[in-house]
């Protein structure tokens, strides 16, 4: 890790990446659920039709905006923090938040198996930061 980077700064940048990524993931996943199976759409109206179906969704565009914010905070974070910490840590935090957000907003069936996965990943993140 970069010696000049404080613990607070490290985690503040990582949490920012995660929070914006969760918003982006939930919005795009919700949009894709509304649009439907892309393989079917591509079979019916070709690749252009599939692309048009995706980019004409406001929910998707809002999701992309959040993802762009997340991307630039990741770029910023990677210039200060090791990739073997920053990439898994931000992505795992995103994953935990997404499990809760997917149940809350997308009404996905987050069963015992998926929660167990979330806990394991969370423990993994703690170990990664040691």
């Amino acid at each position, binding site marked *: 890790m970069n010696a000049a980077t404080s613990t607070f700064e490290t985690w503040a940048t990582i949490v920012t990446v995660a929070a914006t990524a969760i918003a982006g993931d939930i919005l795009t996943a919700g949009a894709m659920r509304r649009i*439907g199976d892309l393989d079917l759409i591509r079979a019916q109206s070709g690749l252009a039709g599939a692309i048009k179906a995706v980019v004409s969704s406001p929910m998707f565009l809002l999701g992309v905006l959040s993802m762009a914010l997340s991307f630039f905070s990741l770029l910023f974070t990677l*210039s200060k923090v090791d990739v*073997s910490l920053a990439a898994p840590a931000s992505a795992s935090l995103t994953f935990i938040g997404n499990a809760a957000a997917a149940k809350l907003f997308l009404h996905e069936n987050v069963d015992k198996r998926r929660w167990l996965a979330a806990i394991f990943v969370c423990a993994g993140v703690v170990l990664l930061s040691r």
Partner: protein
Amino acid sequence: MKHTLTPQRYLILLAVMLTASIGDTLLSHGMGQVGPISFAHLGLLFLALRNPWVISGILLLLGFFASYLTALSWADLTFVLPSTAFGYVVVALLSRFWLHEHISLYRWLGIILIVCGVGFVANGPSLTEHPAPKPEGAAK
């Protein structure tokens, strides 16, 4: 109906996993060359967009996005995300052997835990059944 995936769809998940991790590593390598960026000099981020490593990282992440969206169109978010967590192993190996970052025993244990977590989800159904709304095409 239990949602199991065709081999072609597993290939999409594999692409999601590989492009994300290799893309991140390329970005990290490029940003290492660009150097630290402070809040006072955020304009340097645009300079970073001229670095070939950063450019190839961005291209790979674009490929990631396309396959990620495809996967989301036929599987739950809580299924796709952990499926891609195997990428952490790829990141760890790439940063260890190519970027020569040190990975402690704790970090290796963390990576193993994450991979175990992925195993739980991968065995389950990939899509939540919502009984109420019928697809529009079926209404005709």
